[in-house]
């Protein structure tokens, strides 16, 4: 190294001016970056437009460095907030009665306990058990249960509509439906105890499913034959994503009634149920147009 440069380095240190980094460059002119705007109508690029015809995944959103543009960040945060709000919502007292249901509670005492103790959400409280025994018809073909599950928002939005549609679809197949009940802080397996108590051949719980990004409004339906405590997931059949922008309630109801009928006919449910004999109505992979992702921030 140059003697003079060493000398000046030492002098700089001695003068207390030894800034460890070089002076910043002159401040440049900073124009706004090219717009990369998230849009639910992806007219910006041919790829984004084509992709949006097939998927709701956020594709073609570009990048800033390796990160997201500000519009994308805000849309993403809004979708996350919607999901969290749906999880945090609780079914109000009186909702069941106001909608013509017998209101049932589980052994869960608080929302946090509901999230942490699925075992308590699978069992009726003593009061609810007494209520059920006192007010519900026994020995029916299908016992329907509407419940909050992980989205009270979805339950309140579509629960009543789906319940009534399934009841009609069952009636059309000649299946008797039990007294309408609605449960709060309920998990899927609660249908076992309720079905056991009412002596139903099939129990079917319609409950808010775990929200996804921007979607807190989906319901799932779980159906089990010969409901009783001790049934496992393998004993159940299910349909998910039931809401206006997913599987519409009327379409879901037709499939659910077909499932219930098949269970009663085959005297089983879950992995041992032969779905092949049901045809398209019970599920299959029918084409469904992707949900349109809604812009949540701004106009």
């Amino acid at each position, binding site marked *: 190294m140059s003697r003079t440069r060493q000398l000046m380095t030492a002098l700089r240190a001695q003068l207390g001016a030894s800034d460890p980094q070089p002076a910043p460059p002159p401040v440049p002119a900073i124009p706004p970056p090219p717009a990369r705007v998230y849009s639910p109508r992806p007219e910006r690029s041919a790829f984004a437009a084509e992709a949006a015809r097939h*998927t709701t995944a956020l594709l073609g959103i570009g990048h800033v460095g390796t990160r*997201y543009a500000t519009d994308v960040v805000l849309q993403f945060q809004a979708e996350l907030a919607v999901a969290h709000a749906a999880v945090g919502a609780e079914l109000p007292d009186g909702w069941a009665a106001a909608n013509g249901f017998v209101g049932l509670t589980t052994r869960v005492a608080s929302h946090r306990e509901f999230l*942490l103790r699925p075992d308590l959400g699978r069992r009726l409280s003593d009061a609810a058990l007494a209520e059920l025994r006192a007010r519900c018809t026994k020995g029916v073909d299908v016992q329907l249960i509407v419940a909050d599950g992980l989205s009270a928002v979805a339950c309140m939005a579509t629960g009543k509509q789906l319940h009534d549609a399934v009841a009609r679809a069952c009636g059309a197949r000649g299946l008797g439906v039990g007294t309408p009940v609605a449960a709060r802080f309920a998990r899927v397996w609660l249908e076992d105890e309720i079905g056991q108590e009412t002596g139903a051949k099939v129990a079917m719980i319609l409950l808010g499913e775990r929200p996804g990004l921007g979607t807190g409004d989906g319901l799932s339906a779980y159906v089990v034959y010969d409901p009783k405590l001790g049934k496992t997931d393998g004993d159940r059949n299910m349909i998910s994503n039931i809401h206006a922008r997913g599987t519409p309630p009327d379409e879901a109801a037709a499939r659910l009634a077909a499932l219930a009928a098949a269970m009663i006919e085959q005297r089983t449910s879950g992995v041992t149920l032969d779905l092949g004999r049901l045809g398209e109505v019970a599920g299959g992979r029918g*084409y*469904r147009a992707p949900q349109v992702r809604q812009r949540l921030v701004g106009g």
Partner: protein
Amino acid sequence: MQLGSTIRGVRYTFASVKDVLAKANPPKSGDDLAGIAARDAVERVAARAVLADLTLRELREHPVVPYEQDALTRYAEDELDAQAFAAIGHLTVGQFREWLLDIETTGPTLRAIAPGLTPEMAAAACKLMSSFDLMTVGAKCQVVVRANNTLGLPGRLSSRCQPNHPTDDVEGILASAREGLAYGCGDAVIGINPATDTAASTAEILRVIDDLLRRNEVPTQHCVLSHVTVQMKALALGCPMDLMFQSLAGTEAANTAFGISGPLLDDAWALMKERGTTRGPNRMYFETGQGSALSSAAHHGADQVTIEARAYGLARRYKPFLVNTVVGFIGPEYLEDGPQISRAALEDHFMGKLLGLPMGCDACFTYHARMTQDELESLKVLLGAAGCTYLMSLPVGDDIMLNYQSTSYHDIPTLRRLLGKRPTPEFDAWLDARGIWRDDAPGPRFGDVAAVR
């Protein structure tokens, strides 16, 4: 064997090794749910003090599920490498922890002793370790595997591209996969969780992805994560299959609930050795996650960390190309919040690596767990620093089928730049040739889906 300890004059005693292991765990909602957790922080430390003085030999003699009751215990015991075990069996868990952390204990040495460890030993060490301890040892372990790609080399961070679709629309899957590749993601695998668990659907998706990889000469692997029996049927249909997938749990009973067994996995592996479409030799892909055994009441009263280690014990029999914990997917009843999910991720990575697995992690949360996006991003940095082999990658980290939040297409290049990591060498060269990634920075076609036809 001493199962009691004294803290500030108070005597704590424990019923069994299994009880000690459970109560030594950092707080997890799943252990509370199972009713096996320590009642407070002091009892937790008392359990750790007992655990620190147990020898690895004593752990071997007291598996958390008895030999007679569980095939996984029998595999671990019967297939243990006697010579490797003899080298470490005399150490207490406390000494074992210190030996793992010693600078002199290197990656190659850890590889040599891995076959002498039962899962319970890895879990026990885990319980005495802080996050930095777990990261330090995790980063030391060297597990290199190969299919079409060579995964797990030093200085590398790979990713699974996960272009899931709620109805398996192959055009939607393709669009997402192409974009992922254009962001430099997918060197571990292009892996799709199918919405429909049928052989025909599995074969259809595999063919489409196979075409994509061939058309663009992408050096990676494909996999459709249907049930192993479904994939075996798909293979019989004559479709290409680079990797075969299955979810694993840590007890025989829990695996029965998953519809699998040792003999079934043996058959699947044999079939892949015959029909798998990569260079190999590693051909299997497994996912695990703390809490899955408890969710089917198949945990035998053991804690979820130890049970998770036992799933790795099963996985290692099949020399997998990929193993990852899906750490935040199971929900808050098992891992309540950000700190619990983050701790579990580091634990799982450490235990898997220590047992010789090419351990990746699906760092994620469901929307009913209390974890923020910032916490999740921090966890990815911790995992990257701990030498995690791969993470996931999806558009904005949002799985539109499984409804949870994971790693994004944008996160992988961000992490590589932050941590000075590169993708697998084969994939790195491909990215360079395509102009997607050059050295340590985005190339001219970064994020441009036209770079992938």
